[in-house]
């Protein structure tokens, strides 16, 4: 027993010693969450100064057999090494999304299931958080546990975080090869070709980082675009999305073409994958796993005043945009404006400001976020943002269907000067937009605050607006393709919906509103159905017409011709019933929309059936009958008589 005690004391003191020696590595096995990745981890770590640092091997993985067998599984694996908290050494990433083929096989003492899906794999070494050596990234489509197609792959050589020599990238349509100077600057010719057609190429010609021209060859036709003209000052920046946007802006304003580039597409894709890995690693320790491609661009330096203008523009844009979004997406305002001319007018002004001021400013703000404004010539940028001229302080809108216009203008409009092409000009535009929207917001606020009282109706109103929008877009897309006869009926449906929404808005009692709104929702649905049936009617009636045709061989012409049969039936349908349906639709209201829809569908069905039935008697009766209701009754009688 004493012997045992001695042993225990020794053991405890040893453990204590071990602990006091803080730099000693420890092992962790258990659940871990890194960003959005939750899985089972195994790693070693050290504790220094109360800080836990990854040190040594690291592994995090997840795969769920049950999920896979049931539906699909999202699996991942990341393994590598850290050195005192910083990723260092070889790393390997896998992200998969798989389904099984729900068939299993017993091989030896293992169950095997074949899987299909997509797997991403990244692999390479890091040195003090920076890529070093060859990095590979590959996305494969997996079918029956084998690689079916490579959707993307890139190979880049790094030296201490700087890309070296040459790189290669490809996706399922394009292959890109290019090279760098020692300092990571893009240099010489970057060549891409379509993987299914080697003749189609796109070449980017760099000179020490400066992109001079892009050459396209498509179907044997070559096109050359010079990109950056020579300039007295350059700056080196990263080849990222901002640079691509800069190219787009530069090329668009210079050549007035729509810049579309397979190279840009590939680079952006690659950037995305690297950003994903970098994001994960940065959750655990300082890392700079970026492609780090460098390019040179012309530099138009901005002074302190201009920079402050730009900050102001971004600020104003943000404020203005948030007001405009609030107003444009406010469901109550959306309803109120149907019966309130003033609200309608202000709503239209907001819409116009959003389109003419804020849309272009959003691009400007984006460029600011991407830090590329300093590499653009401001006058050209302005030309690109407002190709048909800068907006006016007088904002004229059409307020109703009679095309009457009304103009909105701020009281202190004189303080805003939209002339010129400086940051001041853009600042004036942004400022004017913000102040205008703030004023509009104020004057509309009484019609927005009602909303609080009608909170309960909120969801319903959103639904009503959505149903109405569906109906309107359904009708607008149908009308151009339909015969002109259909204009009146469909426009009536649109008007009916609009009128009913107005009626809804004019109700004050919330209970009444709720009851009316619920009925209206049903009605809007029925109007959509009716629209669908009416929209299909020309095609349906043409099908029916063809159904009632026999092929007749004409001996004089030696030709087969189509001859209409049961003409009394078809003419009653096309000359009486269809015009009657259209007329009814022109006068339809919420009470009888559904009935009309049913009548039309039922009649179409009957017409199809009558083709095969004996209709001699029916035709005799139809000869005298001109009343659409009686005709529908006769068509129906025929069916019941047959059934008896």
């Amino acid at each position, binding site marked *: 027993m004493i012997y045992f005690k001695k042993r225990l004391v020794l053991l405890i003191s040893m453990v204590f010693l071990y602990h006091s020696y803080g730099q000693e590595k420890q092992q962790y096995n258990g659940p871990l969450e890194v960003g959005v990745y939750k899985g089972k981890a195994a790693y070693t770590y050290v504790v220094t100064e109360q800080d836990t640092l990854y040190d040594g091997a690291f592994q995090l993985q997840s795969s769920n057999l049950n999920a896979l067998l049931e539906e699909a599984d999202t699996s991942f694996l990341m393994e590598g090494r850290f050195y005192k908290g910083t990723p260092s050494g070889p790393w390997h990433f896998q992200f998969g999304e798989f389904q099984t083929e729900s068939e299993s096989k017993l091989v030896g003492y293992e169950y095997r299931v074949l899987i299909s899906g997509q797997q991403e794999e990244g692999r390479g070494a890091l040195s003090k958080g920076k890529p070093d050596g060859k990095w590979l990234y590959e996305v494969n489509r997996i079918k029956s546990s084998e690689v079916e197609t490579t959707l993307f792959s890139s190979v880049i050589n790094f030296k201490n975080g700087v890309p070296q020599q040459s790189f290669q990238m490809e996706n399922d349509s394009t292959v890109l090869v290019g090279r760098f100077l020692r300092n990571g600057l893009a240099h010489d010719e970057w060549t891409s070709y379509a993987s299914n057609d080697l003749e189609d190429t796109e070449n980017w010609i760099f000179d020490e980082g400066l992109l001079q021209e892009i050459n396209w060859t498509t179907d044997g036709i070559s096109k050359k675009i010079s990109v950056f003209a020579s300039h007295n000052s350059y700056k080196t920046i990263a080849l990222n999305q901002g640079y691509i946007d800069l190219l787009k802006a530069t090329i668009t304003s210079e050549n007035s073409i729509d810049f579309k580039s397979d190279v840009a597409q590939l680079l952006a894709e690659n950037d995305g994958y690297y950003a994903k890995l970098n994001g994960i690693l940065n959750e655990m320790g300082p890392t700079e796993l970026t492609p780090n491609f460098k390019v040179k661009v012309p530099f138009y330096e901005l002074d302190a005043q201009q920079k402050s203008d730009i900050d102001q523009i971004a600020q104003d844009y943000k404020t203005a945009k948030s007001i405009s979004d609030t107003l444009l997406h406010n469901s109550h305002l959306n309803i109120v404006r149907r019966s309130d001319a003033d609200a309608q007018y202000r709503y239209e002004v907001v819409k116009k400001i959003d389109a003419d001021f804020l849309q272009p400013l959003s691009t400007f703000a984006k460029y600011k976020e991407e830090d590329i404004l300093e590499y653009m010539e401001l006058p050209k940028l302005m030309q690109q943002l407002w190709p048909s001229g800068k907006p006016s302080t007088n904002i004229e809108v059409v307020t109703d269907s009679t095309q009457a216009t009304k103009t909105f203008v701020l009281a202190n409009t004189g303080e805003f000067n939209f002339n010129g092409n400086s940051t001041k000009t853009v600042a004036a535009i942004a400022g004017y937009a913000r102040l205008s929207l703030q004023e509009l917001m104020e004057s509309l606020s009484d019609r927005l605050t009602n909303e609080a009282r009608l909170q309960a109706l909120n969801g319903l109103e959103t639904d009503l607006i959505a149903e109405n929008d569906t109906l309107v877009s359904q009708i607008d897309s149908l009308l151009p393709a339909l015969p002109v006869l259909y204009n009146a009926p469909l426009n009536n449906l649109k008007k009916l919906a609009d009128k009913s929404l107005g009626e809804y808005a004019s109700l004050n009692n919330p209970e009444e509103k709720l009851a009316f709104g619920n009925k209206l929702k049903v009605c809007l649905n029925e109007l959509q159905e009716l629209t669908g049936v009416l929209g299909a009617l020309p095609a349906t009636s043409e099908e029916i017409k063809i159904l009632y045709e026999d092929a007749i061989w004409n001996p004089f012409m*030696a030709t087969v011709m189509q001859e209409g049969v049961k003409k009394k039936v078809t003419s009653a349908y096309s000359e009486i019933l269809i015009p009657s349906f259209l007329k009814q639709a022109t006068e339809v209201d919420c009470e009888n929309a559904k009935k009309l829809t049913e009548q039309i569908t039922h009649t179409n069905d009957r017409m199809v059936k009558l083709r095969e039935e004996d209709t001699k008697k029916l035709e005799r009766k139809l000869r005298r009958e001109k009343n659409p209701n009686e005709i529908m009754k006769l068509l129906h009688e025929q069916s019941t008589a047959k059934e008896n």
Partner: protein
Amino acid sequence: MESRKNNFIWLVMSLLVVTGSVSAQEEEKVELPFESEYKEPKTKLWVNTYGKIRIGKRLFWDAQTHFRFEETKATPFIGQVGQIYNRHAIGYIYSKKVNFSLGGVVRINFNTDEDSEDRNVVPEWRIWHQYQFAQPLYTAMIYHRIRIEHRWTQSFVENSEYIFRNRWRYMFRAKIPLNSHKLKPKTIYVSPEAELIMQSGKAVVGSPMEDLRLTTTFGYIATPRLTFATGLMYSQGQDLTNAGYYKQNWTLRFHMYYSPDFRRVKNKLPEIHLDD
């Protein structure tokens, strides 16, 4: 009346035993002119009905009645009745593009010679068979028609005897739709046609080319079963009695084509699958 009956019997008999004894008229000496001579054109007007009545899956009754007028001194084209013409046959539909017919013609010829003191009316008899081939060409159809007729005619002279001739006819015709991409109801079409009629027989000595007919017709397909057409025909041909003389005609033609089908519905369909 008696003599006409005799004539008919004689006709039927002679279907096989063909003429040998009818050449009495040719005894007069014929002097050919130094150069061929074209007579003044005559003007005529024809109103023709054509029926093709389906009587079976592959058979039809071909029924044609034509009313043919010709000029008098006072009235061009429609001055007097020239012939009333009845053509009937049973047709056989070999395929949608090919059909054959066999039948008879009885034509009533009116004496149109205003100065003549001979008989006013004499009949004319024919047996005919026809082979028609159609083919589509772009949006149009073209037709080849071979028609062979065995024909017995007599002159207006009292008690004149029948002479027998064979007629060899080939017609080429196109029907080109004008307001449509194919021949279908509500289509107007134009139809150029050319027919060469050759003849042979003991009575035919120097004038084998009986008629060359060049016609342009405009037609309208009202329904698959009814078509109307009208056109103008120029024709020329050698005089039977003197090969040196050429007759010429300008003929206005009006046609109605009808093709009813009285079969029961279940027998009719499907019309287009003739070859199945």
